[in-house]
């Protein structure tokens, strides 16, 4: 187990290095001049040159690359070209908000998606199955920003149950729940749609297994067969999809954070892209890569918990 984790961490370090290298060079071939983005279109050529020197953009690319890599290793991710604040500080300030939203959506997705998926499989080709399939199709078809606006119109404007924007004030549980509710529902329902479909399909396969027939023949209660025996065996593909989808979820959170005006990595990356904030973009990529690598590792480890037959070597 330890050897497996260490091996995976080693792969993670290699992946991270590759991503950092690619990101460094891609960010620099993006069109646009960060000096102009900062000084505006009225800046003179001399002022632009002076700023490029100050930002270290005048030295050869390979030198910039080594300075960047060295900084990442020692935890110095540079300073945002736009705000002047340390990149790591900026990211860490908003990272908890994105994690909070992602985890809440994940929980909602699982709580809604798994039972509906099971229900749909058990009632195959009956009304509940049709409803679940249509519902999950709708969930998958709606772009996150459209469902976000619809949720706002209904719950915030029509019913006035929730605020349109996250106020950012107050740190009590009630404030946090109020700010989190609609964004989490928005992302959680999309996640639930994915999970419903995967759970249904995995359950259908398991329900046809011999041991299920045997259990039924033995007179075991159907609920126990489904929830204790079948679901556990159907969970491997669900966990895989959840792990994979978590990356997509973080991507979808960009739009959700913008529409619900929540702080988070999404707003940070949009601002950084608009203003050619190289250092911030690099820092964001490091964080995204770390998250994806970590999620994959957790997913792999979860397999063993679900199925004891899986050995780590």
């Amino acid at each position: 187990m330890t050897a497996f984790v260490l091996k995976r961490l080693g792969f993670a370090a290699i992946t991270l290095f590759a991503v950092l290298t690619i990101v460094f060079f891609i960010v620099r071939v993006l069109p646009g001049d960060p000096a102009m983005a900062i000084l505006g279109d009225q800046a003179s050529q001399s002022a632009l040159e002076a700023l490029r020197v100050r930002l270290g953009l005048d030295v050869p690319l390979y030198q910039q690359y080594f300075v960047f890599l060295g900084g990442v290793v020692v935890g110095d991710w540079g300073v945002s070209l736009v705000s002047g604040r340390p990149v790591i500080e900026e990211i860490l300030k908003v990272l908890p908000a994105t994690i909070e939203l992602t985890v809440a959506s994940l929980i909602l997705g699982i709580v809604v998606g798994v039972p509906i998926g099971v229900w749909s499989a058990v009632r195959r080709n009956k009304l509940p199955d049709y409803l679940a399939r249509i519902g999950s199709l709708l969930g998958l078809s709606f772009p996150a920003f459209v469902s976000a606006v619809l949720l706002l119109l209904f719950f915030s404007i029509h019913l006035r149950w929730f605020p349109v924007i996250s106020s950012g004030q107050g740190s009590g549980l009630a404030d946090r729940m109020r700010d989190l509710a609609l964004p989490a529902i928005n992302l959680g329902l999309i996640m639930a749609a994915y999970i419903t479909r995967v759970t249904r399909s995995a359950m259908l396969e398991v329900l046809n297994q011999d041991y299920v027939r045997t259990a039924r023949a033995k007179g075991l209660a159907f609920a126990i067969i489904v929830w204790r025996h079948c679901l556990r065996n159907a969970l491997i593909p669900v966990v895989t999809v959840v792990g994979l989808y978590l990356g997509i979820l973080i991507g979808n959170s960009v739009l959700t954070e913008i529409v619900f005006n929540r702080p988070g990595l999404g707003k940070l990356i949009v601002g950084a892209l608009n203003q050619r904030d190289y250092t911030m973009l690099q820092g964001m990529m490091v964080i995204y890569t770390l998250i994806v690598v970590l999620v994959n590792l957790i997913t792999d480890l979860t397999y063993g918990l679900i199925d004891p037959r899986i050995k780590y070597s």
Partner: protein
Amino acid sequence: MKTGLGIALAALLATGQAYAAGTTLNVGMASADAGKLDPHVATSTPDKGLLHWMFNGLVRIKPGEASPEFIEPDIASSWTTSDDGLTWVFSLRDDVECHGDYGKIDAEDVVYSLTRSANADISAFAKDYTAFDSVEATGPLEVTIKLKNKIPSLLGLLVPYHGGNIVCKDAVEALGDEYQRTPIGTGPFMFAEYQPQQYVKLVANPEYFRGEPKIKEIFYRYIPSDSSRDLAFQSGEVDMIYGKQEQTWVERIKEVPGTVVSVMTPGEMSVIHLNMKMPPLDDLRVRQAVAHAISRDAMVQFKGPDVTLAAISPVPEGNLGFTADVPTYEYSVEKAKALLAEAGHPDGVTIKAIHTTLPGMLTTMEAIQALLREASINLEIETVEHATFHEQIRKDMSQVTHYAAARFPVADVYLSQFYHSDAIVGTPTAVANFSHCSVADAEIEAARVEGDLQKQLEYWAEAQRKIMAEVCVVPIVQSMQLWAWKDTLDLGVEVKGSLNLSPPVTEAASFSQ
């Protein structure tokens, strides 16, 4: 259980009404986050709009106006100028307090501020101050500015817009790099808190020299999504919002009960620069044909009559030095075709434009493309990402350049940046002269050093006439600044314009309910 859930839900929802009314102003700005909040560094509209409420200058433009003709004392109580216009002496008020515990503003602070504004290593506006020879404290409350040569509007450089913001020397030195995150000014509102991607909170400055503001706190909220900003305004969560520059936005937001929509100057002027060095636009008749083929009235209708004005001259209407007495080219497809035929293009011409993908600008260009097509002028638009657009037009790669800009409202700024030969793109001194226009250099330079305002105005007017006669540019429309706020918010002044692009929230602003 049900009752418990009900109470919990009610408590949860009740907190949604926590937005204080009466003395708290919630503002929704179209931005994801704050930038550098140093007034000598900040250039973006969201940052400038916020700093507007925190800083003073030696002089200011009367709140609610945007034209330099409304300049009035601010930190300076009075001033004198020498006969040659090169020496200016400012007497300062003795009751201007810096925010926090940084003491009163004196001449040293003013000298420090203006010297900082002129320092290219720090300031984004250093080039505006190249004519400054010296800035000296000639008394505890007296500052003398000496100029190397006359400039069109010294007072214009001293309003709290770009480099004219007065900072507190002790605060800047004590805070170091932290200053751009904790700005200390002298204005009616003081920086209190910054929540990343959420808001900057300002509180009333009780020591403000014009009196303590009636509004006690401002939450300047960063809401990048246009629809979310509108919905937050509709739900009452914000009291004032930055608008979308569209006619439909005005029509939609007007429908929200109790809403004041403000259409403010200065406008952002859209023009079409015609590159006079590239055939076929090197022929005056072809440029005249382009001018005749574009209907400004149609463009105003297209952009929205409530949010745009027709542009007549290379200088926007409302700028000091603007004249409408310039050669104009009435909309006439026949004349355009005749001019093309005369220039040897009886079957029409094809011209190319590199253009940004920004939707607001692109739709304008597509409308122009449709108008030109009527006159057999085929405008090919090559769209590129916005940053690439800026890069390529500055490399002199486009025959036709559609540019929209707002500048300090003195004619010299537009004329120098867009129509003086020093500013031609692709040269070491380039700014934004995309047309290679150089016909009005003499008038632009003469106006800069002319001490007599009437003569100065005449030079500027002549420059505009020459530029239009040469058709270096085809002015299209001016898009105004749009804001909306609740009618319970009384700003205390009639708002016609705001140089800093945000409505004037001063000590006089209050809620009526």
